[in-house]
């Protein structure tokens, strides 16, 4: 008994509070990732939709680039970053389902009776969503490469994956918060659908920003999905606007901080109801 207590003290002192949060987050991410890889069907399902967009939609609208105002001459080049962002965005909005399963099965309560850091229980979900999207991004970009997209070279790849990771983490924050407040799958599904499609259509995901109606352009400027599309698409254009990339990344980072804050607040609210 005393031996364990001593090692506890030592590990806390060595890690510090922030270190402990990071360590606990990484254990939780490890758990979620391992469970994900145990269900390969999920990975397949998560990639089926982006493949449809990449393979079919790009063929269907191949000639879109001939419109005046398009800044690339290959639609697959134009579409690939958007498919990464779309997949990441949906990954984020649905990530709360994992939290609901954990709440239902009492996994969260079991951890709450241990010294597990509360913030790690939330951060890990956000982090897991972001990392999953980065991995999905790599796969999508690799497929688009085979289809002839250039993706802006190594820098382009990095920027696209970072934007995907951030938008996924940002919407995961909202999704986790909603999961903790509603604690019901049906409500969660309704919310994810409710915010999913409108935010996707209020963005220049599938078409050049200058070609969408002016009032939609105005709305799109407040849409985090558009920020991610802006950041991810610039590197593949003929003359990238790097300041737009930088600004979009900053906005996305702020978005992640804000929504993670919301999820943390929702977690405290959930604890008060116990």
């Amino acid at each position, binding site marked *: *008994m005393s031996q364990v207590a001593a*090692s506890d003290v030592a590990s806390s002192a060595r890690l510090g509070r922030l270190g402990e949060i990071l360590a606990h987050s990484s254990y939780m991410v490890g758990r979620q990732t391992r469970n994900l890889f145990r269900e390969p069907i999920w990975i397949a399902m998560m990639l089926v939709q982006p493949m449809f967009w990449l393979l079919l939609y790009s063929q269907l609208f191949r000639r879109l680039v001939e419109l005046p105002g398009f800044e690339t001459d290959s639609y697959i080049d134009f579409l690939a970053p958007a498919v990464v962002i779309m997949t990441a965005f949906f990954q984020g909005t649905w990530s709360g389902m994992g939290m609901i399963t954990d709440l239902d099965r009492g996994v969260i309560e079991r951890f709450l009776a241990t010294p597990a850091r509360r913030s790690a229980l939330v951060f890990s979900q956000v982090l897991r969503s972001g990392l999953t999207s980065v991995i999905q991004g790599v796969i999508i970009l690799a497929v688009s490469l085979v289809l002839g997209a250039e993706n802006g070279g190594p820098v382009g790849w990095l920027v696209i994956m970072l934007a995907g990771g951030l938008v996924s983490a940002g919407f995961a924050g909202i999704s986790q918060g909603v999961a903790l407040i509603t604690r019901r799958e049906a409500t969660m599904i309704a919310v994810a659908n409710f915010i999913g499609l409108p935010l996707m259509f209020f963005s220049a995901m599938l078409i050049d920003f200058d070609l969408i109606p002016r009032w939609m352009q105005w709305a799109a400027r407040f849409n985090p999905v558009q920020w991610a599309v802006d950041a991810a698409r610039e590197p593949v254009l003929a003359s990238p606007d790097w300041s737009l990339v930088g600004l979009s990344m900053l906005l996305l980072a702020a978005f992640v901080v804000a929504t993670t804050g919301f999820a943390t607040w929702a977690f405290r609210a959930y604890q008060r109801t*116990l």
Partner: protein
Amino acid sequence: MDAITVGALEKRYGDVHALAGVSFAVRQGEVFALLGPNGAGKSTTVRILVTLTKPDSGAATVAGHDVVHEADAVRRSIGYVPQASGIDREATGRENLTLQGRVQGLRGPVLRERVDELLALFGLGEAADRTVRGYSGGMKRRLDVALGLVHRPQVFFLDEPTTGLDPEARAAMWDELGRLARGERLTILLTTHYLEEADRLADRLAIVSHGRVVVEGTPEGLKRELRGDSVAVEVTDGLGERAAAVVSALQDVHEAIPEGRMLRARVESGATAIPGILSALEGNGIAVVSVTTARPSLDDVYLHHTGRDFRSEDEAGVR
């Protein structure tokens, strides 16, 4: 020293007064049971003691730490087996134990050895690397117990450890818990709505009803307080009340309480009281369906202290 002290805990959930001033103390190294029907406030008490929820008023300490103000110290000192498991079903038994050990601050070879030790101790060695999804109910419950013990806690809480287990698995769990109680210098608090379980495992117990501790003592002491034997008489429908009045007027009957068509009486000696009871009932035109006598059980203790039958109370609590 007391491992657990609980003083006047109150907790409301909306209109429901879950705890209306619960107080008791548990000595170091003893097995203490909170016994009561569903909805009596046992789980709420445990959830406060393991820092899951905060009391509206009152105070409690576990292993010398205040459960509200020193929650993290409490969490390092306790193991907790929740009523609703909380195992990650997609992970293996070993993975569940390893993660639990890590958040409790164990690392490296110490952790690995502890996990192996627990897997062997709870008969999960062969299933260690299979996902929990395929475990039987008894195996899951044993893993739950192992998870709570990974960091060698001083105080161990089990919330309804055998509810939902088949009789065989329940008996195995009782053996397991009995061994734990004897082996390590561990203080155990368990909640149960099985009178038999409290009788079998607990050194001392408290009967909880409607958010209060009704009575506290050793199972033997509580039963001894009820002098004599208990007699249960089944009469025809609707005559329970009248039968109670008739029987309680008899000389050697200490107490007679009606519950529906049953009548429970406490008498000096069952064997000698029954003829008198039967003839008195027949004399008053009350037909007797059956009659049994027994040494007092915790059932009778419960009935004596609350005036209510345990089983009907339990069903009412489930609702």
